[in-house]
């Protein structure tokens, strides 16, 4: 099980080695999420239409290790963009991956860039 989790580490924008093209912006729902695949990883991508921001994080919920976060509801808590897991509604910051319910769980977050209506996610490999 730990193997599953150990594939996901937050990537800082300045450390990105490869930008992976994952689809056109129109393929991602507005103010919601969808999932993409890169190698063996599942990454949830979120399109915050109201302020034109994009975020990405692991699709794996650290609570019960299911690939579900992209299907969660998005929103913000005191200005911090977040996603609520569809299974037990634990909420995670999409800025730094911390758990907003004050528990130990944490998720990895990835940089997103949009060029010519195409979505790219940054990885270090």
């Amino acid at each position: 099980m730990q193997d599953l989790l150990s594939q996901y580490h937050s990537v800082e924008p300045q450390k990105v080695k490869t930008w992976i093209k994952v689809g056109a912006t129109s393929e991602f729902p507005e103010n919601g999420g969808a999932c993409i695949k890169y190698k063996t990883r599942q990454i949830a991508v979120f399109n915050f239409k109201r302020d034109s921001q994009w975020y990405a994080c692991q699709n794996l919920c650290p609570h019960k290790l299911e690939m579900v976060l992209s299907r969660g509801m998005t929103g913000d808590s005191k200005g911090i963009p977040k996603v609520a897991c569809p299974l037990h509604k634990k909420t995670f910051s999409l800025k730094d991956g911390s758990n907003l319910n004050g528990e130990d769980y944490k998720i990895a977050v990835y940089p997103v860039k949009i060029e010519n209506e195409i979505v790219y996610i940054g990885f270090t490999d």
Partner: protein
Amino acid sequence: MKRVIVVGNGMVGYKFCEKLVTKPQREEYKVIVFGEEPSPAYDRVHLSEYFSGKSAEELLLAPKNWYSDNNIELRTSEMISGIDPENKKVTTYKNEDFEYDYLVLATGSSAFIPPIEGSHIPGVFVYRTTEDLDAIRTFASKLKPEGKNKAAVLGGGLLGLEAANAAKELGMKTSVVEFAPRLMPKQLDEPASKMLQSKIEDLGIHILTNKATIEITGKNAIEKMEFSDGTHLETNMLIISAGIRPRDEVAGNSGIEVGKRGGIKVNNKMQTSAKDVYAIGEAALYNDGIYGLVAPGYNMAEVAVEQITGGTKTMADHIDMSTKLKLIGTDVASFGDPFIENEEVTAINYENKQKGIYKRINVTKDGKKLLGGILIGDASDYNNLFQIYINGMKLPEHPEDLILGFREEGESAMGSVLDLPNTAQICSCESVSKGQICNSISSGECSSMEDIVKLTKASTGCGGCKPMITDLLNESLKSMGKEIKTNLCEHFEFSRQELYDLIKINKVRNFDEALNLFGKGHGCELCKPLLASIFASLNMETANQQVTIQDSNDRFLANIQRNGTYSVVPRVPGGEITPDKLMVIGHVAKKYDLYTKITGGQRIDLFGAELHQLPHIWRELIEGGFESGHAYGKSLRTVKSCVGSSWCRYGMHESVGFAIKIEERYKGLRSPHKLKGGVSGCIRECAEARGKDFGLIAVEGGWNLYVCGNGGATPRHGILLAEQLDDETCIKYLDRFLMYYIRTAAPLTRTAPWLDKLDGGIEYLKKVVIEDSLGIAEELEQDMQDLVNKYECEWKQAIEDPEMMKRFKHFVNSHDSDDNMAFVPMREQKMPKPWVK
């Protein structure tokens, strides 16, 4: 800096740390905590929930990083084996020494094991720590494949019964062996014990009283318990729960004074015989007593913190041992002196064998004071009675009203919570008084439950005082002429009803517009689904229109399951289904390898569909004549029926036909919470209509209409709204009732709690629905008719529109499916692989 060493990181040791870090002098102390258990302090009171699904983490009182964040050095798995009070040092089992300025012993207690031959044979356990529970679970799971399934619990007290219930939940045939002639002899009188015994036996637990165990026998593992009367009991495992023993061994060996029958002696400052050494919690012997409850332990922790930081607080002389037990499945409570019997006292009893309720209160002869009591089967009055008792409040003119449940609409026998004296302790776990709560409200510091919890920590212990705090908050705000704040969330400073009206009047079309006009930020998982529900209730908008504001189940028109797959529930109105349609379901289930089960709502659930399979499955079901069952929505679920007059020899009317008619009428209707109905053909009530949000029972001359029933977590029988209605009037009243509920209920409030909060209760509701006292009846009917006319099956909508179909894909950039998903076989079908604990 002074060094404080805490020995024991249990509930009370933790509370000590928590209280200390809030002190202004906090910086003057370096705190080191030694805990023998591998895990940081957890909620032992709710230990049994470890078996019913709570994880060890969820039970933690604070996560591990709480200690470091608060500058506390926590050393788990480190036992203290010696104390040197002369040189102010403690020694760990690894022989490391640590010096202290203050030492706090919070070593708790261990399970008492009576001196019975054979008590260390494998298969004999105690019930105190998460490790104990792990061991019990592992042992039980090994027994089962061998065809062994008998468990016994030694001890019929509070903990023993809890352990017995846990063993039963593990699938064991469980017996309780009690030495005394009855259960819980310390807390209950004889009739109460009897009632409790029969309730527990109803749960399937066998009870043996008057049995002294003299030997436990077995070769490789326990096989039998031998009793002094020559009889025996065969069993495959045993949990001993015969009382507790304070952990005073380290203190005792180090020359600190301990009691004859155990416990570290303390005065009312929690000081032991050694200088600067304190003892708190179950290890402490105070006023010749050991107190096996958290509330006194928490008080002790507070006193110790105060004493160490220079305060003056001391422990009260009398320690209250009132308890409300959480014996899953039945209410039990006792308070004050439950037994007291003399010339000065009258005991008032109420017993209802059929319902399994027994209540007793002990009142002074002059009828002025409540001295104690017992509640079995229905402990809902516990909080009120306890407050009256503990505060010595005046009793009503007829004290029996306190337990006979006679009261005016919406009023408790106690009157208003505001009548309590300011000193009344509302939360005994955190010792928070009514005064503290009310002052925090009147000073403007707190205006919501959340504020109060944050400021005072009230209700964070056992949680039993929560309803009372809510009442205090609401009543105080009301008495200050303030509106009770019912903001949805941080994004909308409105109540659901206000938003409903705002959206309706301003003809707001979507969530974004609503945020722009009335809210702020991006919204969240509270306001999004709520607004989605309002849009649906106003325009019959399906979940396909504003997809990403839907609750995550509605977004995919299916309920997400444990492994991220979904369930599929086609509507089967009234539970009536043709063989051909049954075959369609069977065919689809087989083709997609879905687990099938008959639900509690008279229809069939197909589990284990992957996201991308959902539209294919639904296409086939729709072709076979089915529609969405809305099992995922806060909307009409099922209208359950009984077979009624078409077949049943007692049937008064055609209940199936009417159930179908109603289900067809309200299908797709979104509401503040889910809605369920039932129609029974006669008063035998086989459709359980009174357990539903609306229920119809056929009687001579028409239908009796009951409303606001509830199964689920807080079961409630529906209340009669109107009698002997013809079909048409019945539907008219239903339209009005449902629409009025949809307009006015708070989010996620079922009809039963909604009615509870409705000023004037059922009488008021009758006026609105039947007499049209608000003059809105016609409007309500019209609104409902509009919604009914606009109904569309949202699954049909989804599969017919390629745009809408897009969301049913696991990956945007690949056609693969989720490879993390795994199933295991179960009986003749399958299930998701279990979660790692």
